[in-house]
C-alpha cells in the first residue's frame, strides 16, 4: 500500500479525500530507496575509463596543494634520505619513433644509456609503449645493480613511451622522487618542416 506521507500529499493536492484504492501504484512498494537523489548519492561515481574523466579529482587535489610542487626549500628537502639536489637524474627522451633513457648523476654526467633500439626492438616496434616499458625495466635493473636507489625523472617530448617508461622505471624497483617535464616548447620557433600531405 501507499506510504502515509504520499497519501497525505495527494489529499492535500486535490483538496478532498481520495480513496487510496483508486490509485494503483506498484513501483513505489518495490523501490528500496524512495528518494532518487539519495539513491544516486549513495552510488559510486561512474568511471568511464578514459583519461581526463577523473579530472575533477585532480583539480580538487591541486586546490589543496598537498605538498605536490617544489618550493624554495626543495633542493635541501630529503627524499629517501638524500637531499633533492643530490638525487641522480633519469632523462627520458620520447619521440614518436623511439624512446631513449639516460641515467646521469646529480651533476648531469651520463652513466647509463638505453634505448628501445639497443634493447632489440627494431623499426616500428621501437615506437611502442611496450618497448619503452621493457627498456625502462632493463635500465632500472642495471641501475639498481650499480647502487642507484632513488632517481628523479625528466621527460622530454610526446610519444607512446611517455607514460609507460616512467611506469617501467617504477616497476624495476627504483624510487622515483619527482617527475619533471622538459619538453621544448617555443611560442616563436624557427620555421618548422613543411606539413605532411594527407
Amino acid at each position, binding site marked *: 500500500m501507499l506510504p502515509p506521507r504520499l497519501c497525505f500529499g495527494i489529499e492535500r493536492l486535490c483538496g478532498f479525500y481520495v480513496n487510496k484504492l483508486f490509485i494503483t501504484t506498484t513501483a513505489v512498494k518495490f523501490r528500496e530507496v524512495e528518494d532518487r537523489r539519495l539513491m544516486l548519492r549513495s552510488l559510486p561515481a561512474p568511471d568511464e575509463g578514459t583519461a581526463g574523466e577523473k579530472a575533477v579529482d585532480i583539480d580538487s587535489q591541486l586546490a589543496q596543494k598537498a605538498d605536490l610542487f617544489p618550493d624554495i626549500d626543495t633542493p635541501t628537502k630529503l627524499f629517501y634520505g638524500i637531499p633533492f639536489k643530490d638525487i641522480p637524474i633519469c632523462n627520458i627522451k620520447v619521440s614518436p619513433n623511439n624512446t631513449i633513457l639516460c641515467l646521469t648523476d646529480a651533476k648531469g654526467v651520463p652513466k647509463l644509456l638505453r634505448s628501445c633500439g639497443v634493447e632489440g626492438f627494431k623499426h616500428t616496434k621501437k615506437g611502442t609503449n611496450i618497448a619503452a616499458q621493457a627498456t625502462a625495466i632493463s635500465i632500472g635493473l642495471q641501475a639498481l645493480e650499480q647502487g642507484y636507489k632513488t632517481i628523479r625523472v625528466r621527460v622530454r617530448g610526446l610519444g607512446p613511451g611517455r607514460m609507460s617508461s616512467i611506469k617501467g622505471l617504477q616497476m624495476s624497483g627504483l624510487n622515483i622522487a619527482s617527475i*619533471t617535464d622538459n619538453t621544448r616548447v617555443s611560442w616563436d620557433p624557427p620555421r618548422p618542416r613543411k606539413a605532411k600531405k594527407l
Partner: protein
Amino acid sequence: MRHVAFIARTVFVQNNDVESACKVLNRILGKEGILEQYRRTRYYEKPFQFRRRINFERCKAIYNEDMERKIKFVLRKNRLDPYPGCL
C-alpha cells in the same frame, strides 16, 4: 621557456604513486596549452591555416562567453521574490 631545472614543471611523487603524479603534470601542461603548442609547432602552419584557426578560436570564445551567460541566467536561483509574476 627556459626555467630553473627541477623547479618548473615538476611534480613530486607521493606514496610511490607515479600514475597520479603523471596525471597532475599532464593536466597542468594541457590546461596551460603547452602540449597544444608543442603539437602545433611540429609542422609549419601555412598563413591561411593560421588565419582560419584564429578566426575559429575567436568565434568559439564568443560563443562560449554567451553560452555561459545564458546558462547562468537559466540556472539563477536566489531571487528576492521566489515566484516573480505570481500573485
